[in-house]
Structures are given as C-alpha cells and as structure tokens.
C-alpha cells in the first residue's frame, strides 16, 4: 500500500507515544526499586547508588521460594486436570453429539457470563464445610470448575469441526469410543489443547480474588495472591514494593517473551471463540 509521507510519520509518532505509555510504567518501577529502602524517590530518577540488595530483601520478605513453589503446585494441579476433563467433555458434546449435548453445551456456555464475584460467597462457605479452606486445594478445585465453561466450549469448537469420516472409518475398523478418543482425536487436538494450557496457566498464575477469599496464608497462594499480601505489608516502602512487584513479574514476562506468538494467538482466539 502506498501511503503519504506525512501520514507515515504521524502514524509512527502515535505508535511510539503509545509504546512509551506502555513501557514507561515498567521503567519507573525498575528505577524506583533501586532507591534506598524506605525512601520516597521521584517517579523517574536513576539513583545515585543503585541498591540491588532491595531485590534480595524483597525476595526474602515475600518468601519467594515458597510462593513460587506454591504457584507451581497450583498451576500443575489445575492445568492438567482442566485439559483432561474439558477435552473429554468437548469430545462427547462436539463429536459424539450424545443425546442432551445441546442442553449440556447451553449449561456450560451460561457459565461464561458469570463473574467470579457472583459465586465466591457460597464457595467460601462450601469449602469451610468440607474442610479444604485455607489450603492450596481451596484455590485449585474451584479454579478447575470456573474454567469449565470456557475450556469445554473451546474444545467443543475444535471437535465439532473434525470431519466425521475420520470417526466413521475408525468405527468400521472396530475402535471403541475410548480408542476413538485416545488414539485418534487426542493426538489431532494437540494445538487447541496447547493453547488452552497456555491460557489457563496464565490465568491461574495471575488469579487474585480466589486467593484473597479462600486462603489466608500468602505462601499457600499463587504469585498474584502473594503479591497482594506483600503490598498490604509494605505499602509504605515504595522501593521494596517495586522490587517485589518486579520479582513477581519476571517469570510472566520471560514466558511471554519466549512464547509471545503462541500466547498472543491463544489469548485472541480465546476471546473470539469465548
């Protein structure tokens, strides 16, 4: 496309301005994190003597190794379970089209509009009643359930578009429903399952409300939940708070930079289909 020179520069300037708007906040907290702990620096100011030790202090105060282990534990219990059970359900609804699958689909899609806050109160009392309140399981189990509307819908969209000849051929060869699922359709569903895995991992890592309500001990939470508690304790120590925030952001940012193409595609498809 041919574009006028003036438009070219106006457009690039706008983009550069918006990129600065996106990046400056990160630079600001990074510089602030290097100021002496307990001081109140200005928003964007390189310190005379950078205090790299702040990162170590924040690392210890936020009990980062425990928090990290806890987040990993929660992600590893939520994501595989979500993938397995939503793929199975999506297969039954989208491909087997069992009687009642329309009703089932409607039931799951209905959940797409439910904000977490709408149902968090009974979840709290339910978990107290069954005795899992204040454990990592208290976050993991409801999260798996809360992902079901999206995850089932996502997998169903994949299975509904699979050609039926494939299944019929397998049936003629004598495949049972389980063979059909495990040997033929699961290997073909790798791409949507991988995207779903990326999405649910990010969402779990960043989950805050469930942590706040269901787990009092910050070291039993996810990264975002732990950060919320850290902010509660060190709200007045800006450099330390910034250092802690950066430490918690680093894993997410690293993963984003490594897998940016997959993550962007997954998040976009996720919203279009969802």
């Amino acid at each position: 496309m041919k574009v006028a020179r003036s438009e070219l520069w106006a457009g690039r300037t706008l983009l550069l301005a918006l990129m600065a708007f996106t990046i400056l906040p990160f630079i600001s907290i990074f510089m602030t994190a290097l100021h002496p702990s307990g001081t109140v620096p200005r928003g964007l100011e390189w310190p005379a003597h950078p205090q790299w030790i702040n990162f170590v202090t924040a690392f210890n105060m936020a009990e980062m190794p425990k928090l990290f282990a806890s987040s990993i534990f929660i992600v590893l219990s939520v994501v595989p379970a979500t993938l397995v059970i939503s793929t199975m359900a999506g297969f039954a609804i989208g491909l087997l089209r069992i009687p009642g699958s329309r009703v089932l689909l409607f039931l799951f899609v209905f959940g797409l509009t439910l904000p977490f806050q709408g149902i968090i109160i009974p979840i709290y009392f339910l978990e107290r009643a069954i005795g899992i309140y204040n454990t990592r399981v208290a976050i993991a189990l409801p999260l798996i359930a809360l992902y079901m509307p999206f995850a089932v819908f996502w997998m169903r969209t994949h299975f509904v578009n699979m050609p039926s000849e494939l299944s019929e051929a397998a049936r003629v060869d004598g495949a049972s429903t389980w063979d059909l699922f495990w040997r033929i359709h699961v290997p073909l569903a790798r791409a949507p399952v991988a995207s779903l895995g990326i999405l649910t991992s990010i969402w779990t890592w960043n989950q805050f409300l469930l942590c706040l309500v269901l787990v009092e001990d910050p070291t039993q939470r996810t990264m975002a939940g732990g950060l919320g508690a850290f902010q509660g304790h060190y709200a007045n120590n800006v450099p330390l708070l910034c250092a802690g925030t950066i430490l918690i952001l680093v894993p997410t940012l690293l993963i984003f930079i490594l897998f940016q193409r997959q993550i962007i595609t997954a998040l976009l498809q996720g919203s279009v289909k969802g």
Partner: protein
Amino acid sequence: METSDNRPKVLVNSRRTYPNKRVRRETFVGWLFTLPALFMYAFFVLVPFLLTILYSFFRWNGVGPMTWVGVKNYVSVFQVPNLIGTIFNAFWLVVWFSFIPVGLGLIVASVIHRVATGRFGSVARTVLFLPQVIALVAAGIIWGWLLALPGLINQMLKAVGLSVITRAWLGDFHWALPSVGMVGVWVLLGFCAILLLTGMTKIDPALYESARLDGASWVQEFLAITIPLLRHEIGVCLTVTVIAALAAFDIIWVTTAGGPGNSTSVPGIQIYILAFTQRAIGLASALAVMLMVLVVIVILPIQWLTRESAQ
C-alpha cells in the same frame, strides 16, 4: 468387555439387529466422558450460583441462624446510596475500560495496518500487548505508584509546566475513578488493538485500493470499510472489556480499595467488603445476583447486534 478381534463383527451385526443396544451403550459411554467436567462445574459453579440466589433472600452473618427477609436485601441495594452507587460507578468504568480501549484500539490497529507492516509493526504489537499478560494486581501496584503524589504522572506534569493540577490522583474524590480507568486503558488497549488488527488483515485489500482510486480519504475509508467489516471483532472487544469493567476487582482493590469514600467502589469490591468484613451475607449475595443479571443484560445486546451483522 469385548476383545478387539470380534468387535467389527459385533458392530456390523449390531447395526442391523440391535441398534438400540448399541446406541444406548454409546450414549452411556459418551455421558461418562462428560461426567468429570460436569461434576466439577456443578459442584463449584452451579451449586454456588443457586446458593447465591438463595442467600440473597436471607439475613445472615455467616455463622448464626438465617432469617428469611424476602426481597428486602434487593430493596436495600436500590435504596442505599453506597450500594446502588457501585452500579453507577461500574457503568462509568465501562467508558474507560471499554469505549476508550476499543476506540483508540481501532485507530492504533489501522495505523499499524497502514504504516507499520514490517519490523516496527511487530515490535509495536508485542510491546502494546505486554500489559495483557501481567497480573492485574501487579498492574494496580505499578499504577498506584505512578499516580501517587511523587510519582511519574505528577513529575511529567510538572515538567511541562502543569504543576497546578498535580495531586494524589487516587486520593481525589473526583479524579480517583478516571485514574483507575486509566489503568484499565493501559491493560486493555493493546489487547483490543491487536485483536482488531487481526480482523483488519482479513479484509480484502482490493476494497481499499478501489476506495483510494475513488479518492476516499483515510477517514472515509475508515468509516465506510474498516468499521462495518470489523463489526464482529468490535463486538468481541466490547464484550471482553465490558465484562472487565462491570466485574472489576483486582485493580481497584490494590489501588484504592473503593475509596476515597465510595468514589471508586464497584459491585465486586462492595460484595467482598459486605460478605467478608461486614458479614452481611444476604446483602452481599443480593448485590452479587444484581451484578450477574447486569452482565447478562449488557452483554446480550452486544452479542446479538454483532453476531447478526457478521452473517
């Protein structure tokens, strides 16, 4: 259990002789496949959903006996300014979380589409998308510092000679909500821009070329081609961002916790405070039900309008 050798025969035979038995068996197995998902969903989503509705008709402090109060909690939600006010605030937030990111996102997407197709464009895409992957809590903490009295925003205002308007943005009754809204713009702009951009790349370039041959300006092109053909993507952006606004919690909780006064209080925040600090479970549940109804009422027309035109 059958062995795999005799299965083809059984299947072929059963199709003729015992169709019902085979169908019934397959249905049964199919339902087994959905059971784990269904069970989790029912236990942790559907049951709590129904319980929220049930709680909303009671007065309850979470431990003592429950007292039936009919629709009194709903009446309170409408009458108490602090409660109904959260719903007004939520709609105000829609302007910031939804209209600005979608509007600005359209402009950004068309700029990238027209002038930044190469390296620069892909860097811009990655950078703008960045806030979407970080935790909202982290976004809130970062902006809490930027908007503080000694923070970056005031520093920049002073640098351009606007020291008169510097203030603690999040502590100001008038400016706290727009300030929180800015965080929403920061988080959601890139998401909307990139989503709209992917839609734009699917538009046939020949349309633009013929428009340009007819001497159409950028604005005419934008209004006559881009917007109508992107209706589906715009609908998706609106749906996602409107839900983000109405159900906002994380950003507001870490920046203002609803304050100062109730100037940034939204339903999510008020539900949390009512239920878990004031122990007014019934009232909190009534507000939760209203929030869920509100989301459906707002989302359905958006979905309906954009889906119809997509065909």
